Every structure is written in structure tokens, then in C-alpha cells.
């Protein structure tokens, strides 16, 4: 799997992400979008060089949330207040939460900065916090819960890495 091959598969999807919310599936009302933005800001504000995005899409059968996350991470255009920050903000510190509204699947895509910091079990725990709400169809609440868990896990992971560096 390379980025070029994936680009062919996902090229029809709009890759412009505004203020961290990418609602390609058209699930969010204005109020829900506002709530989602707030949740993203709350998650981001304590980290330096970290940006968060939530992408709600309806993927086709031959598309997967992991592949789509990978593609969006590297090919997406990220706007803040209608200004393109794709070149100014380092994408290696980005985390994208991908929610496939059609197949009802969810995944996380991390930038290179997070390599080795977050374990698989932790990833699973982050996603599972919003599972109940998502089952009930409460997408915003589920995403808020996941972002909250993501924030706590990132804190732990960073502190753990700092400690590890000091010891070594």
C-alpha cells in the first residue's frame, strides 16, 4: 500500500478540512459542528505542535477508514478560519479521527511524531470510550468522549516518553 495507490482510490473525496471538522457524510447540524469544534479545541489546547481533526465520511465498499485516514493525513488540506494551514502547521503532529458513517467503523490516524508513543491497547481503549454512544447513534457525544480519552492518553504517553528519555 502506497500513498499513490491510495490517492487513486480516494481522489473523489473532498480533502478540505475546515477547523478540524470534515463532515463529508453530512451528518452534522450547525450546533453539532460547533460542539465538535469545541471538543477539538479542548483536546488540542494543552499540547504544543498537535492538531486534531475529525472526519465523518461514507466510504464505499472498497474503501477502509484506515486507508482513508492515511490518505487524508498526507493529502488533505487543513484550514483554520478559512486559511490553509497545510504548509505552515506540521502534519506530523496531527491526529485524525475517521468515522465511516456507512459501514459504522471508526479509526485513528497519527502523524510521525506519535510513532512509538501510543500502544495498540491504548488506541483500542480510546476508541472504545465512545462505542456505546456511537451504537446509540449519538455521533457528537461519541466523538467528544473519544477526543477526551485521546487527550488523556496523549498526556500519559508524552509523560511516559519524557521519563523514558530521562532514564536512557
Amino acid at each position, binding site marked *: 500500500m502506497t500513498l499513490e495507490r491510495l490517492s487513486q482510490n480516494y481522489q473523489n473525496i473532498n480533502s478540505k478540512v475546515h477547523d478540524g471538522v470534515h463532515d463529508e457524510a453530512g451528518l452534522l447540524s450547525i450546533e453539532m459542528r460547533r460542539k465538535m469544534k469545541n471538543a477539538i479545541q479542548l483536546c488540542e489546547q494543552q499540547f504544543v505542535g498537535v492538531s486534531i481533526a475529525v472526519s465523518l465520511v461514507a466510504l464505499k465498499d472498497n474503501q477502509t*477508514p484506515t486507508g482513508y485516514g*492515511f490518505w487524508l493525513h498526507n493529502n488533505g488540506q487543513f484550514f483554520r478560519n478559512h486559511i490553509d494551514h497545510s504548509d505552515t502547521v506540521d*502534519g506530523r503532529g496531527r491526529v485524525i479521527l475517521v468515522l465511516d458513517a456507512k459501514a459504522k467503523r471508526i479509526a485513528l490516524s*497519527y*502523524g510521525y511524531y506519535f510513532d512509538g508513543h501510543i500502544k495498540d491497547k491504548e488506541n*483500542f481503549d480510546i476508541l472504545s470510550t465512545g462505542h456505546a454512544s456511537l451504537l446509540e447513534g449519538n455521533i457528537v457525544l461519541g466523538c467528544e468522549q473519544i477526543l477526551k480519552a485521546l487527550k488523556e492518553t496523549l498526556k500519559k504517553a508524552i509523560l511516559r516518553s519524557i521519563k523514558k528519555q530521562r532514564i536512557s
Partner: protein
Amino acid sequence: MNISKYIIVYLCFFNTLTADPNTDNQGLNITEKILTELDLPNWFWGGAHNFANIVNNLEQPEDELLNQYLYGFSTIATGLNDPLNVLNKEEQQIITKLISEHDMKSAFPLYINILNTGQQLPLIRAQIKPRLNHAFKNRNALVMFYHMNDPRNVDGYLCLDEKGVIENWEVDELYIKSARDASIHINSFDQLEHFVRDLSKRSYWLEQKLMPPVLADNSNNSDLSSKTHSHWNKWFTILSDHIIALSLAIFTILIGLWYFLWSRKWRKFVIPDQKTPLRFGAHHGANISNVIEFSDPRASLSEQYKKIKNNDL
């Protein structure tokens, strides 16, 4: 010879005059004894006996009057006992008011016996004490015999509960210092008034010394529970005494705690820098988590986790 007799007689009378008629009757007795042995004219004897009678009648109150001084407070509602009406009604009211003001604040009620100028009690302190113990049985009392126009000659006692009249240098000091300060005034009533006021003020320190504060305990429970109550009461008293300092300390701790939590909330986290090779031609990231499904409520998270683990293997 005649001259020597008169010298002896002079010495005898001198002895009599200097002797304290309340505490020392020996002077008069010795004088009488010596005089009987002397060959003196009749006119002399008449004069000597007259002198003794005059002294006794002037300075010693009658038995009835003495009883009024010693036991009069049982029949008088106020703390002022003035059987000879030395004070006029207005003066009595002022002193009574001072006494009642003192009694409201003090644990030692004040009892003042007013004696006229030059009047003496025929009893010494040792004789008065048991009588006062009887009169003020198991009660606190500051009892005094105040001589008008002569505050320094005050005779004061302190009755303390079951102990009765106590001898204490602090009690003596209380009366002596109050008398000293009162004696600077000229008017006899002013002296009395200031004496009572000073005594009332000074008795506070004596009260602090002799009567340590007792915590009220209204519970009728067993000894053990009353002990526990008194223990809590002690703590409560200590806490209430230091409530301001404690409040400030707690407030400071809370502010410190709040600041600590607040600073932690806004603490910035920076991801440690590390060199990571680019993968799959991606510039920003190629790290993907596992996928969780939420399409079927029957597909539990634990099953999904098992599935993911098996796939990894």
C-alpha cells in the same frame, strides 16, 4: 520613793495605752495586777477603772452588734451591711449598685461591713475566720470590715467554696493595694467608693488565679460519655479560640491547591522529538490504529479486541 511609784504607774499606763485592746488584753491585766500591789490613793483607782471602761465601751461593739456584723448578711439582700447607718441612703445606694455590678461579673460576691471611725471588733482574725466559715458555708465571698475614714485599716477575707476562708498573700495584696489607692482621696465616702471600685477590678486577677474556668457539661450520661463530651468540648474550645488562624490557614491551602490544579490544567505538553523514517511515501504520517465497528450491538468490544489481537498474531 513617791516619785518612783509614779514612774511605775506611768509605765503601766503607757503599756496599757500601747496594747491593742482587740488582740492583746494582757496589757490591761498586767497593769491592774501591778496597780493592786502598789499603795495608791483611792482617787487613782477610780480614774484607772474609768479609763478601762471608757476604752472598752468606745472601741468594742456590743455582742448584738457583733452578731449583726458577722451574720447580718443572711438577712440583708444586698452586699452592704451598715448596722450603725454610717452611710446615708444615697451613699448606700451608690455602694449597693457598685456591689451588684461587681457580683454580676465576678465569681466572688462582695460583702462589705461598714464600721465607724475608730470602731474595732473585739475579735482577732483567728476568731473571725471560723465565724465567717459558718456564715458563708460552701460559698465564695469577699468579706471585709471597712473602717470609715481609714481604708488602710480594712480587714478583708476571702471565702472559697468548701475551703472556707483562705490565707493568701494575693488576697492581702488585693486589699492592701485597693486601700492604698483609695487612701489618696480626702472625703471618707470617696475613699470607700474608690476602694470598692479598685477591689472589684483587682479581684479579676485573683479570680483567674483561684478559679480556673470550668467547662459546662449538661449531659447526664455515664462517666465515659461525659469524658468523651468534655474531650470534644476541649477541642471545640481550642478550635473556636483559633478560628481565625485556622480559617486563614485553610483558605491559604485551598488557594494553593486551586492554583496547583489550575496550573496543571494549563500545563503544556510537548511531544519528545525523535527521528522517524518516512514510510509508504507519506510525508506526514503512516501510523494507523485498529478499526472498531459499531454497526452491531451484539459485537462486543471484548470480542473485537480478541479479533484484533488474533489478526496481529
